[in-house]
């Protein structure tokens, strides 16, 4: 299925947000996630299904003012 990850289309086969993060190479990274604009806490990623067309945001600390 195709999802939008950080604004770009990606093909993924994983069924949950947790598995999607691993499949995309974020397994060990310190990141926060949102699905379709709503925050998904790390503890809920394994129980959060990912569906075709979903928008996933994967964010990390960055410089800010």
């Amino acid at each position, binding site marked *: 299925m195709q999802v939008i990850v950080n*604004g770009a289309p990606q093909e993924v086969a994983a069924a949950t947000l947790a598995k999607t993060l691993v499949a995309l190479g974020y397994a060990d990274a310190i990141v926060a996630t949102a699905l379709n604009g709503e925050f998904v806490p790390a503890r809920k990623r394994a129980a959060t299904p990912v569906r075709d067309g979903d928008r996933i945001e994967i*964010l990390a*600390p960055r410089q800010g*003012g």
Partner: protein
Amino acid sequence: MDFYGYEPASRLLLGTSQYPSPAILADAVRASGADIVTVSLRREAARGGEGQDFWRLIRDLGVRVLPNTAGCHSVKEAVATAEMAREIFATPWIKLEVIGEADTLQPDVFGLVEAARILGAEGFQVFPYTTEDLVVAERLVEAGCRVLMPWGAPIGSGQGLNNPFGLRALRAHFPDIPLVVDAGLGLPSHAAAAMELGYDAILLNTAVAKAGNPVAMARGFAPRSKPGGSRATPGRCRRATWLRPPPRCWERPI
């Protein structure tokens, strides 16, 4: 000065954006004496993105972090960003920005108050980036804000205090709320002017990061400058009238 039970060691808060290098950022933070720095969240590339390195650098500095919602133009974006920031930075503090106008980065004060109410109910300790408007400030305090951060001038403009009368009125109306001039300062004399108005602290970024010598400028802004060290001329940042719009919420810096 009391930020939700925390007593800062310095009256200077420093942003971490736009420095020439991570090493200069780290040196500037140390030179400034700031014990609170602002940070952000942005989209991360897979497999060792730069956010991981940045976060290590900040943790090594041993300072408190004040995450922001920079670039958010809606209440929904700002709330989601705050929720993500609380998880990743493990702090209830959030510098709440809801931008209403892209050129001047003027806050959307209506969205700001709404977002502050939502986040306050979720247990956040909100530091709202606002204007000097007294009525908006009153609404923010009603929403639970115990710190107010009015702009001195548009973000990154380096103009100093554009409305000293309004800032003075805000101080007079809220004698017991910590007030921080959040944006628009360019020179240490602007910081002194804020202190003369009775403000508790200032928050800087561009003034230091885009100075000719950021570390020297950080030292120049430090409230208790120590003798010695470099005598390099700090070199003020560009004084801007109109600004290039920054990246939108979550997008990577340009």
